């Protein structure tokens, strides 16, 4: 069993403690997975919807998200529904996934902070005909997530900011921001710098080359 499978299996009990309708399946011939239901609660803690899912460990876990599938044929396998042809969910952009994984996700945290909101959004889509929020498909969606992080909507500006983050150590908290806004760094791009720097130089370079 590799390290990914060991982490996934070790974290499963904690996840099941929070989501008791899930159960862990471990077989010699395949990767471990959680299977069962996720109940969706309203603001008064009353269940208003429920999805049957399977969460599969990948060999990259926890450096990448596990794969999540809906198992009751309720969601079409269609990218317009943010579900790939093989049925796994596309929860966020790769850039956002890098950032979340750099904070060392756990299975419980992953289900709570990513899978559950995604399922709420799918439930909303089924009821209202559109997603509450969503990214565009492909490169446009990736750029949207970078723009949100860096608080800009200009590709050249985003590239410059990313290049600074890639090439430089953490600025002093009292220095002026590297974006030349005239604001102090700590009131401007500190969160973005920290979030992106923690994903590592290799992944940062991937993003830089992507938007070049």
């Amino acid at each position, binding site marked *: 069993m590799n390290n990914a499978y060991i982490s996934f299996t070790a974290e499963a009990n904690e996840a099941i403690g929070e989501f008791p309708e899930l159960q862990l399946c471990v077989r010699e011939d395949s990767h471990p997975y959680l299977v069962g239901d996720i109940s969706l609660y*309203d603001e008064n803690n009353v269940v208003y919807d429920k999805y049957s899912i399977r969460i599969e460990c990948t060999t990259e876990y926890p450096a990448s998200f596990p794969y999540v599938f809906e198992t009751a044929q309720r969601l079409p396998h269609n990218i317009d529904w943010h579900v*790939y042809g093989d049925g796994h969910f*596309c929860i966020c952009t790769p850039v956002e996934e890098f950032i979340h994984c750099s904070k060392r996700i756990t299975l419980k945290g992953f289900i709570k902070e990513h899978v559950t909101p995604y399922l*709420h959004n799918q439930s909303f889509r089924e*009821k209202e005909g*559109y997603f*509450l*929020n969503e990214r565009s*498909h492909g490169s446009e969606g*990736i750029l949207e997530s970078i723009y949100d992080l860096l608080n800009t909507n200009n590709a050249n500006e985003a590239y410059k900011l990313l290049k600074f983050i890639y090439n430089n150590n953490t600025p002093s908290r009292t220095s002026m921001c590297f974006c030349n806004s005239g604001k102090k760094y700590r009131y401007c791009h500190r969160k973005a710098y920290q979030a992106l720097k923690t994903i590592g130089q290799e992944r940062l370079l991937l993003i830089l080359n992507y938007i070049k």
Partner: protein
Amino acid sequence: MLKSVDTKLLLTDDLLENYANKDKFLEALDKFITDADAAIHESNQKEASKLWRKHLGDRFPLGDNKDEKRTYGAAAAAAGAITSYPFAHE
């Protein structure tokens, strides 16, 4: 197998190759998609129907000037989905 071959043909064929008003058609289609998206998101029935009528004409009924409230389930889903921004590679 046949299905995948057909799909490939569709993806590579330029269906508007010999269409004289190609640019105008695509521009109108783009506007229709934008307005349809806005209409779906519009909670006021009259405002939404005006958007549909721009493209579909008077055959599309004019809605009442009242806001549609979200159902209980939709409101609960909206509250839970606030941090979700799903994506997909093309």
